[in-house]
C-alpha cells in the first residue's frame, strides 16, 4: 500500500463531504452574482440621476429592488458558511475516530516510545487544525475561480480594455501565491513540530516539578521554558513574514489594478483616450467597471486570508498521515489473519522462535520458544532490564514476534493485565473498576476491593465507590493505585492473568493477603504469568522462567 500523503488525506476527507461543500460553493456564487446586481443598480441609479437627469422619485423602484435583494444575499452567505461548517465538523469527527482506532491498534508497546501529550495534541488540536481548510478555504478556492470569471465576463462586455487590465494582473497572482505559499507551507510544518515539541517540553517539566524543586532547578527550568517559547516566536515570525507576504503581493496587485482601471476609465470618459473601446464608455459602464474591479479581487483576497488555513491543515495532515502510515503489529491488525491455534490442546499460548527487537536497542528478547499451559502459574525472573516486561508484552500480543517467529493462541483469548504504572482514569472509584467488567454489580466491586485489600480504604471513604480519583491517582498512594489495578484483575473474567511486578510497592501485610488471593485465582483454574523479583511470589509458582540477556531458561521447580 502506498504511503498516505497529506494531500491524499485531505482530498479523501473532502470527497466524503462533496455534496455539502458544492452546495456551499453554489450559495457563494449566487451571493456573488447578487453583489454584481447591486453594483449594477448603484451605477444605473447614479447614471439616471446625473446623466439622464431623472427626478429622484422615478428611481424609487430601483432603490426598492436593491433593498429587497439584500436579505436574499444575507441568507445565501449564511447558508454558505453553515454548510461548510457542517462539512468541517463531519470531516473532523470522522478523522478523529480513524486516528484513535489506529492508535489503539498500534498498541501499548508502540505508544511507550511516544510522548502521550504530543500524541493527544495531534488527536485533538491537529484534527481541529483542519477546521479552517474545510470550513473556509475549500469553498473559497472554488469561489476564487468562478466569481472573478463571472466579473471578468461582465467587464469584457462593458469594456474589453478594462477587462484586459484586470486580466493582466490576475495570472501573476496565483503564480506569486504559489511561490510564496510553498515556502510558507514548509515553515508551517516546522512550526507544527515546534508546537508539538513545546507542549511536550512543558508538560514534562510540569510533571517533574517535584524533582525540579528538590534539586533547586526551577529557575533554570523557567529559563528553558522561556527559551522554548521565544524560539516558538521566532519560528512563528519567520512563517508569518512569508505568509503575510503572499497576501501583501495580492493586495498590491489588487490596489494597483483598481487604480489603473479608475484612471483609465476617468481618462476615457474625458475623451483623452482615442484608442479601442474607451470612447464608448459612459458614466454607467465606467462606474460599474470601477465597482466591479475590487470585487474581481475580493474572492482572491479572501482566499489569501484563508491561505494559512490551508498551510495549517497541510502541516497537520502531514503529521496525521505519518501517524496513519504506521503499521500496527501483526497481532493487532484487524485485517491480519488471526493467530494460529496452539498445536497442543493443553497449551494456552505457544511461542515459536519468537524474538523482539527495538530500533534503538537491538534484539531485546529471544529467540525463545516457551509453551504456556492452561492452569500454569509461571514466575518470570531475571535482572531488571533483561526482557521480562517484553516477554509479557509478547504473550499479550502487544508486540508481534520478528520475522519467522510465531505466537499461537486460541482465538479470542482474553487476559487481565497489570503493570508497574497502573491506569487510573479521571472518574469515580467505580468507573475505574468497571473498566475490567462493565456489568459488575456494586457487590462485585466491593468483593474485588476486598480481595485487593482495599476494603478498609473503601470503608473510610464517605462517598464510597463514588469517590472520584484524579489523573495519575491523585489522592491515592502508589501502593493503593497498584492494589486498585489488582482489584480489576479480580473483577475480570479472563482465564489468563499477566502481572508485571504486581507487588512492587506493597507492604508485607497486603503482600501476604494478595498472595492468598493469587492462590485463589490458581484454584479457580486461572493461568498466571508473573514477572517479579519477589521470593514469596516465586514460591507460588508451578513453573519458573529465568531470563538472562534475552534468553529464557526453564528453571526446575518443586
Amino acid at each position, binding site marked *: 500500500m502506498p504511503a498516505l500523503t497529506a494531500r491524499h488525506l485531505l482530498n479523501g476527507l473532502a470527497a466524503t463531504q462533496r455534496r455539502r461543500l458544492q452546495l456551499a460553493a453554489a450559495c457563494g456564487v449566487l451571493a456573488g452574482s447578487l453583489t454584481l446586481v447591486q453594483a449594477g443598480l*448603484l451605477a444605473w441609479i447614479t447614471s439616471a*440621476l*446625473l*446623466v439622464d437627469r431623472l427626478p429622484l422619485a422615478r*428611481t424609487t423602484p430601483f432603490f426598492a429592488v436593491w*433593498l429587497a435583494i439584500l436579505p436574499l*444575499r444575507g441568507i445565501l452567505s*449564511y447558508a454558505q*458558511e453553515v454548510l461548510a*461548517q*457542517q462539512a468541517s465538523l463531519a470531516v*473532523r469527527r470522522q478523522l478523529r475516530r480513524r486516528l484513535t482506532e489506529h*492508535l*489503539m491498534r498500534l*498498541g*501499548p508497546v508502540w505508544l511507550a*516510545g511516544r510522548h502521550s501529550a504530543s500524541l*493527544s495534541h495531534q488527536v485533538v488540536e491537529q484534527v481541529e487544525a483542519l477546521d479552517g481548510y474545510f470550513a473556509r478555504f475549500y469553498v473559497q478556492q472554488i469561489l476564487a475561480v468562478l466569481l472573478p470569471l463571472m466579473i471578468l465576463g461582465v467587464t469584457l462586455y462593458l469594456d474589453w480594455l478594462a477587462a484586459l487590465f484586470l486580466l493582466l494582473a490576475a495570472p501573476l497572482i496565483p503564480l506569486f501565491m504559489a511561490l510564496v505559499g510553498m515556502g510558507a507551507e514548509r515553515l508551517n510544518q516546522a512550526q507544527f513540530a515546534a508546537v508539538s515539541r*513545546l507542549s511536550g517540553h512543558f508538560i514534562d517539566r*510540569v510533571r517533574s*516539578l*517535584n524533582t525540579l524543586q528538590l*534539586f*533547586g532547578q*526551577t529557575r533554570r527550568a523557567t529559563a528553558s521554558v522561556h527559551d522554548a517559547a521565544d524560539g516558538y516566536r521566532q519560528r512563528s*515570525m519567520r512563517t508569518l513574514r512569508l505568509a503575510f507576504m503572499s497576501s*501583501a503581493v495580492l493586495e498590491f496587485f489588487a*490596489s494597483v489594478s*483598481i*487604480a489603473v482601471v*479608475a*484612471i483609465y476609465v*476617468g481618462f476615457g*470618459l*474625458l475623451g483623452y483616450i482615442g484608442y479601442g473601446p474607451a470612447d464608448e464608455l459612459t*458614466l454607467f459602464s465606467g462606474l460599474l467597471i470601477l465597482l466591479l474591479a475590487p470585487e474581481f479581487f475580493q474572492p482572491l483576497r479572501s482566499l489569501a486570508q484563508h491561505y494559512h488555513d490551508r498551510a495549517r491543515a497541510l502541516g497537520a495532515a502531514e503529521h496525521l498521515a505519518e501517524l496513519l502510515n504506521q503499521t500496527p503489529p501483526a497481532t493487532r491488525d484487524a485485517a491480519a489473519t488471526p493467530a494460529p491455534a496452539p498445536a497442543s490442546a493443553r497449551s494456552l499460548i505457544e511461542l515459536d522462535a519468537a524474538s523482539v527487537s527495538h530500533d534503538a536497542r537491538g534484539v531485546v528478547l529471544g529467540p525463545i520458544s516457551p509453551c504456556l499451559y492452561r492452569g500454569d502459574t509461571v514466575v518470570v525472573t531475571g535482572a*531488571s*532490564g533483561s526482557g521480562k*516486561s517484553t516477554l509479557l508484552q509478547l504473550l499479550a500480543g*502487544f508486540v508481534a514476534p520478528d520475522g519467522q517467529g510465531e505466537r499461537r493462541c486460541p482465538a479470542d483469548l482474553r487476559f487481565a*493485565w497489570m*503493570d508497574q504504572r497502573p*491506569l487510573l482514569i*479521571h472518574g469515580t472509584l467505580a468507573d475505574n473498576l468497571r473498566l475490567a467488567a*462493565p456489568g459488575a454489580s456494586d457487590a462485585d466491586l466491593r468483593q474485588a476491593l476486598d480481595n485487593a485489600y482495599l476494603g478498609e*480504604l473503601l470503608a*473510610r471513604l464517605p462517598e464510597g465507590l463514588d469517590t472520584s480519583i*484524579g*489523573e495519575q491517582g*491523585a489522592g*491515592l*498512594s*502508589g501502593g493503593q493505585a497498584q*492494589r486498585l*489495578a489488582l482489584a480489576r484483575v479480580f473483577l475480570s473474567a*479472563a482465564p489468563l492473568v499477566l502481572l508485571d*511486578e504486581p507487588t512492587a510497592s*506493597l*507492604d508485607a501485610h497486603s503482600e501476604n493477603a494478595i498472595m492468598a488471593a493469587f492462590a485463589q485465582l490458581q484454584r479457580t483454574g486461572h493461568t498466571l504469568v508473573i514477572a517479579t523479583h519477589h*521470593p514469596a511470589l516465586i514460591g507460588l509458582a508451578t513453573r519458573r522462567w529465568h531470563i538472562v540477556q534475552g534468553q529464557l531458561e526453564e528453571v526446575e521447580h518443586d
Partner: protein
Amino acid sequence: MIERPSPKRTRQPPTSLWWTLRPWLGMLARRRRRLWLGTLLMALTLFSALGLLAVSGWFITATGLTGLLLAAGASASLDVYVPGGAIRLFAVTRTASRYLERLHNHDTVLRLLADLRTRLFARLATLDGRARGGHRASDWLNRLTADIDTLDSLYLRLLAPPAVALLAGAVLSSVVALFVPLAGGVLATILLAGWLWFTLGQARLGMADSRRHVDELEALRGRVMETLQGLAELDAYRALGHQQQTLERLEDRLYRSQRRLGRWVALGNALQAWLVSVATLATLWLTAGAFAAERISGAIMVMLPMAVMAMSEALGALPAAFTWLGATRGAAERLNEVDAPPAANTATTAAPHPESAGRLTLDAVGVHYPGAFQAALDDVSLALAPGERLAVEGASGSGKSTLTALLGRQLAPTRGQIRLDGIALDAWPDDALRRRVAVLTQQTELLDDSLAANLRLADPEADESRLWQALAQVSLADWAQLLPRGLATRVGEGGRQISGGQARRVALARLFLRDPALVVLDEPFAGVDRATAQALCTALDTWLGTRTLVYLVHEASGESTVVPPGITRTLTLTDAGATAASEATPLRQ
C-alpha cells in the same frame, strides 16, 4: 472593592468581564507604544481603503460629467493629476501599511505570549505539591499553550479592530455630515447600532458556548491522553470500545457548542454585509436628494456612498471575534486562578545556617489536608543527630510520601514544627536548603530528555566523567556503555524507554551527584531486583558516610527488604496515619 480571586478556590463564582481581563489589560499596557503603533497602522490601512474607493468614485463621476460637457461642446476643465496621484498613493499605502501592521502586531503578540508563559511556569513552580496535585497534568499543559494563545485575541481581535472601526465610523459620518448633515446623522446612527450589535450583541450570543469551549477541548484531550497511557490495561479488559464511546461523547459536546457558535458567526457576518449595504443605500438616497436640491455636486453624490461601502472592511472581522469573546474570558479566568499572588512560603530572609551537618527534629508534626476525611500524618515527633540513620516504615497510604514532602519542604505541616540544624525548615533560604537536603521521591520523575540531561538536573556543571561515575555507583555504567548513543540516549516520557528498575537507578544516581547533609530516600529500590538492590546498598553506604539518613520503606525488617547498614532506629507509621507513630526503637540487626 472586588477582591482578586484567591488561588484556593478551585471554582470561582463568576466575576465580571472587566475584573477578569483587568490583569491582562494591565500587562498589555506595559507595551503601550508598540500597541499604539500597531493600532495606528491598522487605521492607516483602513483609511487608505476608504480613500481609494471614494476618490476613484469621485474621479470617475467628475470625469464622466466633464466628458459630457466637452462632448456637448462646452468648455470645461478638470485637474486630473491631483486625484490621479491620490489614487496611486492610496493604492500603495494600503498595501504597505497592511503588511507592516500585520507583521508588527503579530510580533508584539508573540513577545507577550513568551513573557506570559514564563511568568506562568514560574508561578507554578512556587506552588506546593498539594496545590498542583489537585489538577490533571494535562490541564497545566493547556494553561500554558492554549489559554495564553487565546489571550492574543485580546489586543489583535478584541481591542484594536473595534476601536479602529469606531474611529472610522465617526470620521466617515463627520465627513458625510459636512456635505449632507442629515446623511451624516443617519449614517452615524446605523453604524453605531451595527457596531454595538457586532460587539456587545454577538459577545452575548456566543458567551456561554465559547467560554466553555476550552474546557470541552481539555476534557477531550485529557481523555485521549488517559486512553493512550492506559492502553495496555484498557485493551486487556476489552474496554477500548467503551473508551471510544466516551471520547465520542466528549467530542459531541464540543461540536454542539461549535455548531451553535458557527451559526452565530454566520448570522453576524450576514448582518454585517446587510448593514453596510443598507447604510450605502441610505446615504445614496440622501445625497441624491441633496444633489436634486443642488446642494452638492454629482461627483460628491457618488463619492460619499462609495466611501460608506468600504466600511465593511472595518466591521467585517468584528462578529467572529466577539462571538468568541467567551474563549478569551474563560482563558483569562483560568489563568487568574493560577496567577493570584503567591503564598509567601519561600523564605528570603538570610537566616544564618551553620555548617554543622544534618541535625533533624520533628516536634508533634501533623498534616491534615483541607476537606480530607482523615489526617495524612498525625503527631510525629523525632530527633536525629548528625550522621544518624533512621528507617521509617509503614504500609502504603500510611503517610510516608507526606513525610517525604514535608522533609523536602514541598508541603508545610498544618501542626508542629520541623527544624534542620536548629533552624525552622521554613526559615531556610531555598538555595541553602536544596544544597543541604537531598530527597528521592517514591515516584520516579525523569524528563523526556537524554540520560545526561536527566543526571545533570542534580548538578548542571557535572562533566561526563562525573556522570559515568554516578552511573557506576548505581551499576548502570556497563549497561549505558552498550547503548549505541551512550549518555545521549533519550529516556522517553517519564522514563518509559528504559525499564522501571533502570529509571529508579537513574533517579538514585542523581543523588550521588550532590553533597547533602540530610538524605531522604522513599522506597529507593522499588522495582529493582534483590541482587542489584544489594549492590546499590553497598554503594549507598559508602556515599552516605556521615550524612544523616531518613529511609522510608514499607517494612524495615522484612526478610525480603534490602536495608542499608547502619540503621540504628526505626519509626513505624501506623495505617493511614490515623494514629501517632510509635516510638522509635533500635532496629534488630
